[in-house]
């Protein structure tokens, strides 16, 4: 069983792969890129919810830090959700410039967010929640996206 840090970091990598496939699909033909977009958007939403509904809650409960790093990460999730939704609209409008404008911004936002999580938050979470690591990964793994 992987640790919380390994599990969520690996999931970042999976979302990045789907992001690249989505951009490929839009470059080739924006008309038929919706499927690749949905795949990326769903995987990313699942990742956000695994954090917001499971890991962050456990972290906040254990440390009492409800307005600390997790609050900022939730805020950045909201920023990313907006950009992902803009990208969906751009695909519907068949507007490549608008799509790549948002996707470039999302990529940088997403990666600096991931760096902060992998460098700081996951390391802190692993330290605080190591005893419950297996249970938390199980919960994230079996979570149903709302």
């Amino acid at each position: 069983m992987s640790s919380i840090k390994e599990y969520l970091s690996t999931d970042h990598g999976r979302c990045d792969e789907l992001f690249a496939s989505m951009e490929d699909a839009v470059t080739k033909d924006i008309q038929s890129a919706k499927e690749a977009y949905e795949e990326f958007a769903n995987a990313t939403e699942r990742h956000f919810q695994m954090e917001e509904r499971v890991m962050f809650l456990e972290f906040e409960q254990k440390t009492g830090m409800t307005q600390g790093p997790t609050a900022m990460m939730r805020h950045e999730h909201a920023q990313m959700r907006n950009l992902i939704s803009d990208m969906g609209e751009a695909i519907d409008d068949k507007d490549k410039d608008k799509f790549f404008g948002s996707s470039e911004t999302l990529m940088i936002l997403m990666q600096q967010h991931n760096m902060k999580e992998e460098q700081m938050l996951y390391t802190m979470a692993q330290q605080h929640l190591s005893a419950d690591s297996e249970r938390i990964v199980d919960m994230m793994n079996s979570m149903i996206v709302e």
Partner: protein
Amino acid sequence: MDFNGLSVDQAPPISAPIRFFLTAPLFAILAGVLILFSDAASLASRHSIEAIVITHAITIGFLSFVMFGALTQMLPVLAGVKIAKVDFVSRLSYTFLLSGVLSMIFGLWLNIQILIFAASALLGGGFLITIISMLLALKNVINFTPSIKAMITSLIFALLITLIGVHLLASYGVGNFSESHLFFANTHSVWAIFGFAGILIIGVAFHILPMFYVAPKFKRFCKQRVVLLISLGLLFWMVLNLFLDSYAIVAKIWIITFFWAFATTVHIKLNTRRRKVSDITIWYWRSASVFMTLGAFSWVINDFFNSEYIVIVSVMIGGGFILSIMTGMLYKIVPFLVWFHLNAKGYMSIPTMNEMINKRLATAQFVLFIISLIGFVVSFFAPYLLSLSAIAFIISMLILEYNVISPVLIYLKTIKTKPDFDMSMFAATTQQQK
């Protein structure tokens, strides 16, 4: 557990890095103008006053400004730490460095002793304030990744070259040069290029290339050992230079092998990246990789020609490699910072990053920059091309200044309007945490 200083949630104010980024191209323009006023024969020697002044307009005025701006921004993201009183430190170090580098340029160029002494003190102060405050912040890191170790190593080299630089510059002020002046000058320049800038670029690339371009990760050996091996090579080079100068080439080959390998690795990673989108930053990474390879071979070959071609090597590595990467980075980081800070203030209807910089102007800037670099190399053999190359360089840097100022103007214009959402409640909550 002590989490003081850890800053997963805190970005520095936009002005802290931006003031460095907007100033950098201005020094490159000034360097170009100074080249126009120099004769080719003086610039062919790296020890001429003209060559020293122009080199430092670029290395301090452009490269160090961009590196310090970027580090200010990246420390919270890459290392999870923040510089204490970041706004104050940024203003103070900027003031010292700006006045210091101007004093150095005009002091040396016009031979005004008092300015040279002032430059030595101001630059020493500016660099030390920045470097020490960053090293103090890095003490709080809880997860020392290879990138962070590279940053720390790079800053230690920066600290050492600052101390040597202060001594060298003061020697010009006094007009009295010690016997070891040349040894210090060589150590200063080689450690600055490969120890400070080179190691920082390699360390940041461990993260940047795989993450932003979805490229294959760097091998464990690269991440764990290369920075250490380069640092040992730089120390070895210094020792040989001091005691066994005729064997210094062994250490040069040692150092340059890693940089050549890095340049090749960058090329391979870009070719195998999953994210196929190509933009100006990718072109800059590619040009950096080509110039580093050429510069690496030239540096070694130069030894067989009594260092006659060292200026060409400097243009290739300093301009082609380091300046390329720094410029490419500006194209990403400035529009992103503008977007990020506006969005965080509640502005939702703002231009995307791609809309903030005119693509054609960015392409024109890149092409002129590459032409000017090739021109500088060729003008070593054909001096009549020097002025034309300098003009191409000046225009390229004027366009760069325009390109980085454009997003900032969008920022300034937007914050005068009312945000789409009121984020003050949120700001108050996060402020309480601090």
